[in-house]
C-alpha cells in the first residue's frame, strides 16, 4: 500500500517554475532515490513534501497525499504535527540540523515532547532506546555531548537517530552523505538500510550519485531541470536505462575496471528561465533529433509503471532491438 503519493507536483519561486509535474508513489518501507545534477530542484521538491519550501518557494499545482490528506492544503499548524512525527528530514551538513550550543540529549527530549505528552525522564529513556537500537555504543555519553564534540559521520548518524526518535513513516534525506568521507558514507548508508529493516521506514534520499542511488534504493527518479525524466526500479534504471540523460549519468560514473575517469555530461544545461517548449535535455542529448527542442516529449508509462519522458524512446527501443 502506498504511504505517500505525489501527483503532478509543480513548485515555483515567484514566476519561475522549478519543479515540474513530478509524480511518484512511495510504499511503506520503500526507498526512493532522487538523482540529478545539482540545481535540478531536488532539494526544493524534498522540502515541499513537509511544507517547508525554501524562502519564496510555493507549490503551484498538484497534490501530496499522505494518509488520505493532501499536505499542500494543510496550514502550518497542521503540518507541524506531521513534521518530525510522521515525516522527518535530515540534511547535507553533517548534523547541521543539530543546535550547536545545546546538548544532544536536550534536543532529543525537546523533539519527542513536541509530539507526545510524556515527562522529560520518559523522553530521555525513549531517546536512549533509539540510540541503542541504532547500535550507538555510548548512548548515555552522546546524550550528554554537544554536537561539536562528535565527528562528522557520528553527527550525521545522531541526526538520523534524532529524526527517527518518533519512528516516522517517512524519512527525507537531502544528500545525507555528500559532505562525509567515503569511508563514513558507507556507514551512514548502511545505517539507513538498517533502520528501514527495523522500523519499516520509507526513505526518500536525494543524491547526485547514481551508483549510491542504485545501491540503496528500490526505486529511482532521475531529475533534470525540475522534471522526472525517468522513473523506475533501481534495477531497471541501472541495467536498462531508457532515457539518454540516465545513460549519460551512468556513463559519467568513474569505473575502475574499465579505467574510465569521471567525465561529467558535456554541454551547458538550459537555465530555468530559458527552457525550450520541447525537451529540456535536448541541447545536451547525444541521441536526440533536431525536432526534440520544440517537440513536447510524451510521457511513456510501461505496464509495471516505468516512466520515461523522451521523444526518441520508440526509436531507441527499435535501435536496441535491432542490435540484439
Amino acid at each position, binding site marked *: 500500500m502506498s504511504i505517500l503519493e505525489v501527483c503532478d507536483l509543480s513548485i515555483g519561486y515567484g514566476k519561475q517554475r522549478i519543479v515540474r509535474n513530478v509524480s511518484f508513489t512511495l510504499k511503506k518501507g520503500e526507498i526512493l532515490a532522487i538523482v540529478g545534477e545539482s540545481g535540478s530542484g531536488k532539494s526544493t521538491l524534498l522540502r515541499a513534501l513537509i511544507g517547508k519550501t525554501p524562502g519564496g518557494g510555493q507549490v503551484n499545482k498538484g497534490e501530496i497525499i499522505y494518509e488520505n490528506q493532501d499536505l499542500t492544503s494543510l496550514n502550518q499548524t497542521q503540518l507541524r504535527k506531521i513534521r*518530525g512525527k510522521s515525516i522527518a528530514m535530515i*540534511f547535507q551538513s553533517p548534523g547541521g*540540523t543539530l*543546535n550547536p550550543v*545545546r546538548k544532544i540529549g536536550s534536543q532529543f527530549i*525537546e523533539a519527542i515532547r513536541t509530539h507526545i505528552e510524556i515527562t522529560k525522564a520518559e523522553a530521555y529513556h525513549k531517546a536512549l532506546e533509539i540510540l541503542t537500537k541504532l547500535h550507538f555504543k555510548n548512548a548515555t555519553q552522546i546524550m550528554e555531548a554537544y554536537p561539536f564534540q562528535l565527528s562528522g559521520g557520528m553527527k550525521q548518524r545522531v541526526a538520523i537517530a534524532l529524526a527517527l526518535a518518533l519512528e516516522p513513516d517517512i524519512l527525507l534525506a537531502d544528500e545525507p552523505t555528500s559532505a562525509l568521507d567515503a569511508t563514513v558514507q558507507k556507514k551512514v548508508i548502511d545505517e539507513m538500510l538498517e533502520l528501514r529493516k527495523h522500523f519499516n521506514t520509507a526513505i526518500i534520499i536525494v543524491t547526485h550519485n547514481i551508483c549510491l542511488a542504485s545501491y540503496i534504493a528500490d526505486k529511482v527518479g532521475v531529475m533534470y531541470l525540475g522534471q522526472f525524466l525517468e522513473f523506475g526500479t533501481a534495477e531497471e534504471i541501472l541495467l536498462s536505462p531508457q532515457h539518454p540523460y540516465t545513460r549519460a549519468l551512468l556513463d559519467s560514473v568513474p569505473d575502475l575496471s574499465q579505467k574510465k575517469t569521471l567525465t561529467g555530461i558535456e554541454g551547458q544545461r538550459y537555465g530555468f528561465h530559458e527552457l525550450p517548449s520541447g525537451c529540456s535535455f535536448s541541447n545536451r542529448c547525444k541521441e536526440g533529433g533536431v525536432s526534440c527542442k520544440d517537440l513536447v516529449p510524451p510521457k511513456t508509462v510501461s505496464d509495471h509503471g516505468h516512466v520515461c519522458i523522451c521523444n526518441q524512446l520508440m526509436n531507441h527501443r527499435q535501435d536496441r532491438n535491432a542490435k540484439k
Partner: protein
Amino acid sequence: MKRLILKRLLQLGIILLSVSVAVFLLVNLAPGDPAYIKLSAQGETPTNERVEEERIAMGLDQPLHIQYFSWLGQVIQGDFGSSYRTDQPVINTLLKSFPYTLVLALAAFIVMLLISVPLGVLTAVKKNSLADYFIRVLSFFSASLPEFWLALILLYLFALQLKWLPVMGKGELKSMIIPAFSLGVVLSGKYIRQIRTALLEELDADYALGARTRGLTEKTVMYAHIMRNASISILTMLAMSFGALLGGTAVIENMFMWPGMGRMIVEAITWRDIPVIQGFALFMAGVYCLINLMVDLSYGLLDPRIKIRKESGQ
C-alpha cells in the same frame, strides 16, 4: 581558564600602558603651561617668578620621559596626583563620583534592556509585519534623538506639568528616573535594531531549519534555539553599550546636576585641571577593559564550544 585570564590580564596591562602614554602626551603637549594653569586654578596671580617656581616643584623642567615614568610610578601606586583646583587627591574625586555614574548608567542600562530586548525579539519574530515596521520607525527616531532633548520633554511633562518627579536632585532615586530614561530610551533605539539583525541572521541557519522539520513551533525555534545562539553576539553588544554608557553620561549629568563623573570631567576640562582629566581617562580605560574581560569570561557560560575547550585546557 587560568591561562585565559592571565593572557587577558596581560593584554589589559598593555592596553592601559598605551593609554597612559597617550593620556600623558596629549595633556602635556597641549598648549598652555601646566604650572600657569595650576596657579590660576588655585586663584593665585601667576607671575613669572611663581610660574617658574611651580614648574620646578611640579618637575616640569625634567625631560619628558623622566616626567612620564615618575608620573606612571605614582599612578601604579594609585596616586593620580592632586587636582589643580581643589588640591584633593584625584583618586578621591574619581571614587566619589564614580558610584553616581555607575548607578545612573545601570539604571539607564536596565531601561535600555527592558525596551530593546523584548522589542528587538518582537521585530525579529514578526518580521515585516506592521508591528515590526512601526517599531523600527520608532527606534530609528529614538536613536536619532539627542538625549537632552528627550530629557527636556520628559522634564516638562513629568516634573513641570504633572509634578510627579523632581526637576533635579542630589543623587536620590527619584531624581534619577528622568535622566535614566532619557539615556536608556535613546540607546534602545540602536539596540532594538541590532538585536533584530542578530536574530534574523540566525533565522535561516541549518539548526533552525532542522528544529522546524522536527515540528517545533516557531516560538520554540526562536526562544530555545535562535536566541540561544544569538545571545553570544547580543551579550557582547550589550556589554559594550554599558561601557559606552559609563562614558556617555556627561551631557545628562550636567543638565541634571548629577554628581557623577560626567559632571566632574566637564568641570575639570573647563578649569583645565590636568591631573583630573588624566585620571579620568585612565580610569575609564580600565573600566572598559574590565568589562571586556568579563564579557570574554562569560562567553564560556553561554557557548559550550568555548567552555569545554577551556575546561580541557586547550
